[in-house]
C-alpha cells in the first residue's frame, strides 16, 4: 500500500495535507476547463465527423467525461492520501 495511512499524523499535518489536496482539486478543475474549451470550441471549425458526430461534439461530451474520469482517478488514486479521521469512526 503506497498511501500514507495517516495514523501517525498530527492535526496540523492532516489539515495541511487536506489543504494541499483541495489545491490539487482546484488545479484539476482549471485543467478540465482548458480541456473543455479546446475540445469543444477549439475544434468546432474542423470539418471532421466520427460516427456522424462532429469532432467538437464528440470531444466536447464523451471526451470531457473521459478526461474528468482520468482526473478523478489521478486525484483519488495518486495524489490523495488516506487520513485517519478520528472520532472512533474509522476502520
Amino acid at each position, binding site marked *: 500500500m503506497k498511501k500514507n495511512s495517516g495514523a501517525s499524523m498530527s492535526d496540523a499535518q492532516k489539515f495541511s495535507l487536506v489543504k494541499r489536496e483541495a489545491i490539487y*482539486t482546484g488545479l484539476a478543475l482549471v485543467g478540465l476547463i482548458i480541456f473543455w474549451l479546446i475540445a469543444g470550441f477549439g475544434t468546432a471549425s474542423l470539418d471532421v465527423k466520427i460516427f456522424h458526430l462532429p469532432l467538437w*461534439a464528440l470531444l466536447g461530451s464523451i471526451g470531457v467525461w473521459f478526461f474528468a474520469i482520468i482526473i478523478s482517478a489521478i486525484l483519488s*488514486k495518486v495524489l490523495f492520501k488516506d487520513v485517519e*479521521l478520528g472520532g472512533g469512526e474509522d476502520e
Partner: protein
Amino acid sequence: MNEGNLSALLPLIFFMAVMVGISIFVRHKQAGKNFVSNYFIGNRELGGFVLAMTTVATYSSVSSFVGGPGMAFQVGFGWIYMAVVQVTAIFLVLGIFGKRVALLARKLNAVTVVDIIRARFQSDFLAAVAAFVIVLFFCGTMTAQFVGGAKLFSAVTGYSYEAGLILFGLVVVVYTSIGGFRAVALTDTCCALIMMVGIVLLLHYVLEAGGGYSQIMTTLEINNPEIFEPFSFGNMPWTIYFTQWLLVGICTIALPQSVVRGISYKNTQGLHQAMLIGTVVVGFMNIGINFTGILAHGVLPGSAADYGGVDNIIPTAIVKAMPPELVGLAIIGPLAASISTISGLLIVASSAIIKDVYLHYAEKNNHVVTPARVKILSIAATAIIGAAVFVIALTPPSLIWLINMFAFGGLETAFFWTLLLGLFWKKANRLGAMLSMTGGTIIYCATQAAGFKILNLHQITIGISCSLILFLIGSYIGKRSDDATLEIFFPKN
C-alpha cells in the same frame, strides 16, 4: 383514477413499496443507537459506493431527466457540451470539502453544515440565517421536484396529476421521515441505479423506433443542421455556457445537501472511491439522457412546440417509442431522480430546524430534551416540511423550472464563499460571513425579482460577485476570529 394505464402503474407501486421497505428496515436496524447522529447523517457509516450514488442522486433532479433532454432535442449537441460541465460536481465537492468537513465534524461533534458554520464564525445569528436560507430555498427546489415528477407521471400513465403526487410524493415524505439519512442514502443508491437502467432502456427503444442510429443522424444532418453547431445558430449564446459553468458546475460545491455528505462517510478510502465512481456515473447519466433527447427526433419528427414544449419531449418519446408494458419501468428513472432529490433535501431541511435551531437553543438555555422527544420532533419536522411542500405542489405555481434554478443560485450565493473562505482562509471572520450570506442573498433575490441582468448573464453572476466583495470587505474591517477557533480550524500542532 381509473382511466390510466394500469400496467404503467404497477412497477412504480412496486418500486415505491421497496423504498418504504428499505426505510422500515433501516429504522429497525438503527434502534438503540444515537438518534440524532443516525437520523441526520447515518452515524458516519457510508461506504464509497453509497456515498457516490447518494451524492449523484441528490444532485440529479427531475429537470436533468425531463427539461434538460427536452432542451437537447431543441438545441442539439451544444446542450450536451454545456451540460457535461456537471462531471465536475462530484470530484470537486468531495475533493475540496470532503476530508476537511469530515475532520472538523468529528472534532466538533457536528452533524450538519450549519454546526460547522456556527463553530467557525461563533455566531448563532449566522447559523439561524443559514438554517432559514436552507429551509426556504429547499422548499422551492422540492416543490419543483414534486410538480415535475407528478406532471411526468400524469403525461405518461394517463392518471391524474394528483394521483401521481400522492403515489410518489407522499411515499417519499413517509420513507424519509421514518428512515432518516441512512434510508435516504440507500434509497438514493437504488434510485441512481434505476435511473441508469431507465436511460439505457429508453435509448434502446428510441433507436429502435427511429430506424437505427445511422438513419436518425442522417435525417438530422439534412433537416436540423443547427443541432451540429455549438452555438446552434444563435440558440446557445456564450452567456449560457458561462453561467452554466457557475450554476451547475463550480458553485455546486457549496450546496449544503452535497457538503453534508462529507460528514457522513466512514473513511477516506470510501471518499476516494466515491470521487471516481461519482464522476463516472454523473457523466454517464448526463450524456446518456441528453443524447437520448437529441435522438428522440427519430420518433418525434416535429418541433418541440408541436409536442407542447421541451418538457413534453421525454414523456412523449417514452409513450411513442416504448412497448406499453415497459412504460412503467421507463418512468421510474425520472421519478427516481425526483424522489432522490426530495428525500436528500428533506432530511437536511429537517436537520436545520431540529438540530440547528431547536436543539441548539434548548442546550443553550439548559433545557433538557429527552431522546424520545428528539426522535418524535425530528420525524415530525421531516413529515411537516414534506407535507407543506406537498400541499403547495397540489396547486402548482407557474414557471416552476425558473423557481428551481432560482433556488439553486440562492443557495450557492449564500454558502459558496462562507464555506470556501471560511474553511480555507484564516482571515475569514464573522462580519465577512454575515455580510456575504445576508447581503449576497438579498442582492441575488432582488436582481431576480427585478429581472436585472448584466450582459444578459444569469443573476448568479451578480449574487456570487457581490457575496465575494462583501465577504472581503467584512473580513478586512471586522474583528479577527479568536485563537481558540483558529486552532480548531487551522491547527498548528
